């Protein structure tokens, strides 16, 4: 059985998977913005914190750089359990959307 993912959590996990499943806050926010999804940095961290608590992502602290005012990066990675969650939700959504007349035509609005 799958647990529910919020919209923000699903977006953050998808962005993380697109970034070779190893990224910190800045590229995640930029990846989302590249797909017309504006999310504040704090919202991304709140979503990542919740996902980490549920064992869907893990984190490691990276190096501190001058570009970041001497602060360390925190890298995130989607776990196998996290990938299963996303796949299960993807399957459910695809099944739900099949045959819905309003959603025909792919990405055109």
């Amino acid at each position, binding site marked *: 059985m799958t647990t529910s993912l919020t919209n923000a959590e699903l977006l953050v996990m998808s962005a993380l998977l697109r970034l070779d499943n190893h990224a910190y806050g800045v590229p995640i*926010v930029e990846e989302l913005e590249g797909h017309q999804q504006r999310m504040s940095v*704090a919202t991304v*961290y709140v979503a990542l*914190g919740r996902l980490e608590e549920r064992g869907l992502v893990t984190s490691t602290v990276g190096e501190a750089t001058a*570009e970041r005012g001497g602060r360390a*990066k925190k890298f995130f990675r989607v776990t196998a359990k996290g990938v299963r969650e996303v796949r299960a939700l993807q399957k459910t959504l695809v099944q739900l959307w099949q045959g819905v007349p309003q959603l025909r035509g792919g990405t055109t609005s």
Partner: protein
Amino acid sequence: MRSHPPAIATWLLRRFVPTTDAEALAGDLFEHYQRGRSAWWYWREVFVAIFTGAWSDVRRHPFSLFGAVAVGWVATVALVALVLPTEYSLLVRYVLRHQARPEQMPFVGFVMTAPFGLLCGWIVAQVARECRISAVSLAAALSAIDGIWELWLNAQNWPASQHFNVWMWLWQLPLNVLLILLGGGLLTGSPKRSTSN
């Protein structure tokens, strides 16, 4: 390298963002700023970080957070009720001996009651160990709301409530808020964040 982001915003970020990711978040915001984001963007992100962090604490530790604020307020009100009569008798004697002019009484009274603000912040911080920053900030915000409410009530009865000194109020309100934050340890030392976030 571009200049540093707004110092006050960075200070607020360091002091009032309750999550354990605050350091990584601050680094990310710094990096975004260095890549050309505006000061306005930086300020907005800092406020979003403070409020989303506080809201996250409200959702995760509601009993601890509101319980701590309630305990802090009740304990402070009880202590004020117990200690103030003695303090006021001292104050009256002080004035009767002509050591203070009547217009100085509100100031002397405030000096006597100020430690209760510190005490309230300290109690809240001790009770809400899981969500200390959010609980102390909430207590300070409630103190500000209480002060504004007092002003509004007195404004209704103007000029009958001439004993209410607006100028005193104008500096007492922010000072009370600062005393609660100071008592809660939010303005001194390195911020102690919960490890459960």
